[in-house]
């Protein structure tokens, strides 16, 4: 049995269905955003945790020159270490069929029993390499799929200077390469970088590492702290060319995964907050109007003896009904989008299983948040309904009082016509409502701006970095440090216009109590292909003495120009020296220290040593060059700039389109919600007034202008406000994207501002048209007989 009040509630909901739908939709967007991001977050986190646990992802890692296997006993005795894995890891140049440029392959040794040890592989397809077979490899699934490789495919590889043909026998995934990105890259380029796992003895033979290892992974007891273990590992590995050991936090793939998780975490808080705030405002407006139009009914109910509590509940239930509708829609929508987002993650993060999970906790939290926003929305209006004394409520509402605003003293406004005055005075009469409307619309504008920020910033980052800093067409890394002759031979390859040598030294930098593992690059003072830049992106010359740090690295060390940093060479002679910081370079990608190549080689006592070369290429001869590079021994890897940029573009375009569509839809819902509801309420409040004007001979358009002028003006005011808020929010996001791997600059394109403006205007116009249609339905006859 439905009570009479409940029937009244249903009728009110139906009668106000347009506005109820708009408010519910805004709620739905907020809840959907919450559910999407939180469930994607939890799905990703769950997949990561399970994968890391089941496949025994290592807790710490170290690279070294070469150490005997016998060192394992000492490593395993370090307190807190539970398991060690001594591996051989080498980067080589690959010749992949169908790929013009050379690819980089990371070869990793497999233990005798491939399903044991740390960082275990998940074999998706095929089989393990047979023991002792030097020509069999298991390829990472993402790499194989991107290059159309399958078990049975063959690729060329230069193993320690010898060209070999490898046969792919299986496809696998590793917890170490969930995000499979080449060193120094932001986005995975699965066509040109891939991991290959091979038989240990075969690799040891090829690289002269029989009875030795050059890479260490270890697991620690859950309770033990990492710092002392890393210290002990470093001490043991130091005589063997150990580069500093590091924990999961600095492991590339894991770091990207963590960054992504913390990023969704940030979005998962402010996006739903914006939407639920606006939906609370809309419900508040709806309820306030409902209480105003139902004054008589409220009085009657009170006269009949309904308690204040029951009447309060009646209006609270209205708010509850709206958010319930919104929540159901939002949870469904969130589940849909969440599954979509997890689908996108599958392209970037490679797990054996990445399943979308909609947990009861997320749904419950969403419902609670929605309930909270309903209560906030209902609290004031319900109190107003409850406080209404029955006798007063029986009388119609007192006539609306208006007054001349202070703005009317402004000379320029004195000449405006009465219609414009109606619009302005209506705004001035309810300044709070106008302010909240402006905030609501501005929130939509800001959402659009923030949604596009990352794309604008990456665009700018790419331009800034690759036009100003890394200006070469290709980077060639030598397998071992060589002499000037090596660069000379590279310069003579076909299509090479210019070859600039560079020296790359793994170092640990220390300043005061802080230390940071990084790389020190020696570049020639006369070089033009790799430049240092200031904050305005102007090139700064390489000083002949001292060290230049990327700004991020200086910040991480807490050092500034003039500070003297201690530098420890981590390979070769392991020299320690001190250099003053003579400059900072504002490059947006990665961190490094720079020294003049000549000065650096003097300090390191290895005159003329080079690690590789930066090449400027004649595009017409690039194919010939690539072929030559693929067959050149001594090369560990080649990075082609154009290919890297194309990858970034492709990745951006794909996620960009989806993001823009979703953001546009969400922001439109916000604008429609605010404009449509405000205009409907204005129509309900001033319907009589407008119908009178129709009787007096005002055309529909003229009446529509009077009704919608207010919303139009508020929208026009809200757009610059929203652009401003969006810009400020993006500025606040800059620290979120200030990472060691990359730093997004604060930049918003004119296109972003234009898109935000156009979408908002279009959504406002559509809402206006929807309401304007109702002007036709004004009852011109009833108005002659109705009291305000």
């Amino acid at each position, binding site marked *: 049995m439905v009570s009479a009040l409940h029937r009244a509630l249903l009728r009110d909901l139906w009668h106000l269905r347009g506005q109820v739908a708009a408010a519910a939709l805004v709620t739905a967007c907020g809840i959907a955003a919450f559910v999407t991001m939180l469930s994607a977050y939890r799905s990703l986190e769950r997949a990561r945790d399970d994968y890391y646990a089941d496949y025994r992802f290592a807790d710490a890692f170290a690279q070294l020159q070469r150490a005997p296997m016998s060192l394992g006993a000492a490593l395993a005795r370090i307190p807190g270490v539970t398991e060690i894995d001594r591996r051989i890891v080498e980067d080589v140049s690959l010749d992949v069929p169908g790929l013009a440029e050379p690819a980089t392959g990371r070869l990793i040794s497999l233990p005798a029993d491939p399903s044991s040890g740390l960082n275990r592989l998940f074999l998706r397809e095929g089989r393990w390499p047979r023991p002792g077979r030097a020509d069999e490899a298991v390829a990472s699934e993402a790499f194989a799929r991107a290059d159309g490789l399958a078990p049975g495919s063959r690729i060329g590889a230069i193993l320690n200077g010898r060209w070999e043909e490898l046969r792919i026998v299986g496809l696998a995934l590793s917890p170490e390469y969930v995000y499979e990105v080449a060193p120094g890259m932001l986005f995975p380029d699965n066509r040109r970088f891939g991991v290959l796992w091979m038989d240990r003895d075969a690799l040891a033979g090829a690289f002269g590492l029989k009875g030795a290892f050059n890479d260490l992974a270890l697991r620690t007891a859950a309770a033990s702290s990492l710092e002392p273990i890393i210290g002990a590992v470093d001490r043991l590995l130091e005589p063997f060319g150990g580069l500093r050991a590091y924990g999961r936090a600095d492991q590339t793939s894991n770091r990207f995964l963590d960054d992504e998780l913390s990023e969704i975490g940030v979005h998962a808080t402010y996006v739903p907050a914006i939407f639920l705030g606006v939906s609370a405002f809309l419900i508040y407006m709806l309820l306030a109007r409902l209480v105003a139009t139902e004054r008589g009914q409220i009085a009657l109910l009170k006269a009949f003896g309904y308690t204040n509590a029951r009447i309060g509940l009646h209006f609270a239930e209205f708010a509850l009904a709206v958010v319930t509708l919104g929540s159901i829609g939002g949870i469904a929508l969130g589940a849909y989008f969440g599954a979509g987002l997890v689908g996108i993650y599958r392209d970037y993060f490679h797990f054996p299983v990445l399943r979308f999970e909609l947990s009861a906790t997320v749904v419950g939290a969403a419902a609670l948040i929605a309930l909270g926003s309903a209560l906030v929305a209902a609290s004031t209006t319900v109190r107003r309904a409850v406080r209404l004394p029955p006798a007063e409520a029986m009388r119609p509402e007192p006539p609306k009082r208006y007054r001349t605003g202070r703005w009317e003293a402004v000379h320029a406004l004195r000449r405006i016509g009465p219609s414009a005055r109606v619009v302005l005075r209506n705004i001035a009469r309810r300044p709070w409502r106008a302010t909240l409307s402006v905030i609501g619309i501005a929130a939509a504008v800001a959402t659009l701006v923030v949604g596009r920020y990352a794309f604008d910033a990456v665009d700018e980052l790419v331009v800034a970095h690759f036009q100003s800093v890394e200006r070469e067409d290709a980077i060639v890394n030598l397998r071992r440090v060589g002499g000037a002759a090596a660069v000379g031979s590279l310069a003579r390859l076909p299509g090479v216009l210019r070859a600039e040598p560079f020296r790359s030294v793994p170092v640990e930098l220390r300043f005061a109590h802080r230390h940071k593992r990084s790389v020190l690059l020696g570049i020639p003072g006369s070089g033009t292909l790799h430049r240092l830049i200031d904050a305005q992106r102007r090139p700064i010359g390489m000083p002949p003495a001292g060290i230049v740090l990327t700004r991020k690295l200086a910040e991480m060390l807490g050092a500034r120009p003039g500070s003297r940093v201690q530098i420890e060479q981590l390979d070769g002679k392991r020299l320690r020296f001190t250099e003053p910081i003579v400059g900072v370079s504002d490059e947006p990608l990665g961190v490094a220290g720079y020294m003049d190549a000549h000065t650096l080689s003097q300090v390191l006592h290895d005159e003329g040593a080079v690690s590789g070369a930066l090449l400027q290429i004649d595009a017409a001869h690039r194919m010939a060059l690539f072929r030559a590079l693929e067959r050149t021994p001594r090369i560990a890897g080649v990075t082609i700039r154009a290919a890297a940029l194309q990858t970034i573009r492709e990745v951006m375009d794909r996620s960009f389109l989806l993001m823009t569509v979703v953001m546009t839809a969400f922001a439109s819902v916000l604008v429609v919600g605010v404009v449509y509801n405000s205009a409907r309420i204005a129509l309900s409040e001033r319907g009589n007034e407008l119908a009178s004007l129709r009787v007096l*001979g005002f055309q529909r358009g003229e009446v529509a202008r009077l009704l919608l002028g207010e919303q139009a003006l508020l929208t026009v005011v809200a757009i610059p406000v929203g652009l401003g808020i969006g810009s400020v929010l993006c500025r606040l996001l800059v620290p979120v994207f200030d990472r060691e791997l990359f730093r997004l600059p604060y930049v918003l394109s004119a296109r972003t501002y234009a898109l935000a403006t156009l979408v908002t205007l279009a959504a406002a116009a559509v809402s206006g048209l929807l309401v304007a249609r109702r002007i036709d339905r004004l009852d011109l006859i009833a108005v002659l007989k109705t009291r305000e």
Partner: protein
Amino acid sequence: MPRARLARRMSRKQPSIARLNTSTQTTLATRPSAILAGRNVSKVYRLGDVEVHALRGVSLELGAGEFVVLLGASGSGKSTLLNILGGLDVPTSGEVRYRDHVLTTATDRELTRYRREHVGFVFQFFNLLPSLTALENVELVTEIAANPLPAADVLGRVGLADRLRHFPAQLSGGEQQRVAIARALAKRPDILLCDEPTGSLDYPTGKVVLEVLERANRDLGTLTVVITHNAAIAAMADRVIRISSGEIVDVQHHATRARPEDLSW
């Protein structure tokens, strides 16, 4: 604007008082100066399954400058007739003409133009825009009129020269109604339609409003139609048309009109 200039402007448009006087002497059917006429006007409303005959074949002609009172009880059909004459409603059958325009076949846009250019409305509940002052309420209409009177002058004529900057909420009912009359007259309509103009006013205020209507009719020569259920008002009309159950049951001509101040109810 000086009174003299205002009077000149009015005399350009309006027929002479002499001609108005002759029109009151002629019979209903042959009135040569009729500007608004209805022939066999019927209106049937459907309320659920019930058909309500609001008007049953009403014919009438209204002359320029006439002061007509439509008298009837509530539900008699007088409001329906007024709505149809004002272009707010269309009859189920019959024809309504304004000069040489047939209103019954006009589009919504044409009817709006008819109301805008030729008809002034005065409502029982005034229906002023609360957000505009007295002056601005009148200006709202003069803004869209082709050849309006200056808003301040018209308000002066209805005795509100010192209330121009007041908002409706700051005016008494009678004052609000006078603003409404000024708003209706300012565009110099041919026809002024008043629906129970004193219906929500007290006795003295009501009389002041009637005086304003009477003077406007006399000075401006606007055809004025007042509907009311108050028989006492009928004495000030040139013609009184009684309506009952959707039919004209009686037409009375007055050779001389009573002055509003002499009326009592």
